[in-house]
């Protein structure tokens, strides 16, 4: 019943959009070099996947996104912990972090490609750089916003500082860190595609770019659909993990009653 309620309305929306799309691209409607009809996009997508033509591109984009995201995220949490826990580090580094956070990192894409070549390495660096900062800022503010009374409580029971960090500050920051991870995963994909637009021989971004040159609009749309699916599934995956780890921030009815590790 609940499934019916969450699945049916968006499905109706999709059907309406598809119907409108078919209508404007009907014979005698918009020319196919501006907007291809839904069927030819579906055909382009299907033949690209079935012939194996898309797969190297998909694998390339997936690997640069995931590897870069993993590296950027790990570094961001480590750096965030350092900044949040050390006053000295904060005084010297934090103003620059704020400044860089406000800079669009994709502007560095050409430079990074010059430094790291046109292959996978440059995409990984760009992706890591892009998802690093939002997570860094979220980690810092998450740790900083730990309820001071919880810290005072733990101190009153003579808990050492490392313990307070591990068992109070880090869990307290967990939902902020996951919010940063969710922003990061979407940005990571943008970074990978921008890198591929600028210079690449592979990737879904490259696929879209070369389809543009050939005016093959159906393949462009197919590429965009692939990227959209990446984006949706990766943020769903982050949210899934978040619900598992930050279990205490859910309505009480969904909480486990049994033992937890």
């Amino acid at each position, binding site marked *: 019943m609940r499934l019916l309620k969450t699945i049916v309305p968006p499905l109706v929306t999709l059907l309406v959009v598809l119907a409108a799309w078919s209508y404007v691209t009907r014979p005698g409607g918009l020319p196919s070099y501006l907007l291809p009809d839904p069927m030819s996009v579906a055909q382009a997508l299907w033949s690209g996947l079935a012939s194996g033509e898309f797969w190297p591109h998909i694998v390339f984009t997936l690997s640069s996104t995931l590897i870069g995201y993993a590296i950027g995220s790990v570094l961001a949490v480590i750096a965030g912990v350092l900044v949040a826990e050390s006053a000295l580090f904060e005084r010297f580094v934090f103003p620059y972090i704020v400044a860089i956070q406000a800079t669009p990192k994709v502007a560095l894409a050409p430079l990074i490609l010059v430094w790291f070549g046109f292959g996978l390495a440059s995409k990984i660096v760009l992706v890591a750089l892009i998802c690093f900062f939002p997570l860094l800022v979220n980690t810092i503010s998450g740790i900083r916003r730990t*309820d001071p*009374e*919880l810290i*005072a*409580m*733990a*101190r*009153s*029971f*003579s*808990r050492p500082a490392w*313990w307070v960090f591990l*068992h*109070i500050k880090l*869990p307290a920051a*967990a939902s902020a860190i996951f919010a940063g991870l969710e922003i990061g995963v979407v940005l990571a994909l943008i970074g990978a595609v921008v890198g591929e637009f600028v210079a690449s021989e592979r990737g879904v971004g490259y696929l879209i770019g070369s389809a543009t040159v050939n005016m093959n609009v159906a393949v462009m749309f197919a590429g965009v659909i692939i990227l959209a699916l990446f984006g949706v599934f990766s943020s769903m995956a982050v949210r899934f993990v978040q619900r598992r780890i*930050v*279990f*205490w*921030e859910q309505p*009480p009815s969904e*909480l486990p*009653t*049994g*033992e*937890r590790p």
Partner: protein
Amino acid sequence: MTVSAAETTTTSPPLVALSGVRFSYPGRSGAPVLDDLSLAAADGEFLAVLGPSGGGKSTLLKLLAGLEVAQAGTVKVGDTVISRPHRDVGMVFQRPTLLPWRNVRDNILLPVGFARGASPAERARADGLLAMTGLRDSAELYPNQLSGGMAQRVGLARMLLHDPKLLLLDEPFSALDAMTRERLSLELQRIWMAERRTAMFVTHSIPEALFLADRVVVLAGRPARVLADLTIDLPRPRTLETMGTPTFNALALELRRLFDAVSNDKAIAP
């Protein structure tokens, strides 16, 4: 929990001794919160510190817990001069301050590093405290599944876990509704009578202080001064009926008059 045990404690040397204590929060101007304050509590005594909000009551507890350090004077618990957090105290706060990511049992075992870090004896102690506070069936629940009263009971159990000599209670029931508050006062009395520790209970509720304490100290002003020091000679265990007795009412009236005088003072002073 016999009467004779209570009598012997009154003659023993004080467990808590503050003498000539001055404290002001850094960066705040004006008079210090505490100045030249001296106060003692006997071993095994239940001392209620009563006073208006912002009267330095909580600061007093923070000094005893070692969370803050006095700028002058000495703060002693037993033979130890307190200058940092130490193992001799157990504390309960106004809010439950439970870790939402840990179940009730782990929250109670927090002073020894959760169930994993606890010795078998400490785990047994936690089980005993769970039973004593009526939480036996709630050990695996998480804090956001608890009512306010249950959460504060977890706090009471956590305070007692590591066998502290001194219990510090910072308005522990003030966020609860009136009914729960009364029930928890009864429960605290029962727990205290079973455990017989020195307790410092900060509150701004006159009936609560009278109901629970062997001695009520009224603290007010800035810097805070001891305005009154009353011994409450009501027999234990006290019940809800105790609150209706003439002695109780007379004491409550006396304290209320004192309070009125203090707040009038405040209103006149600019």
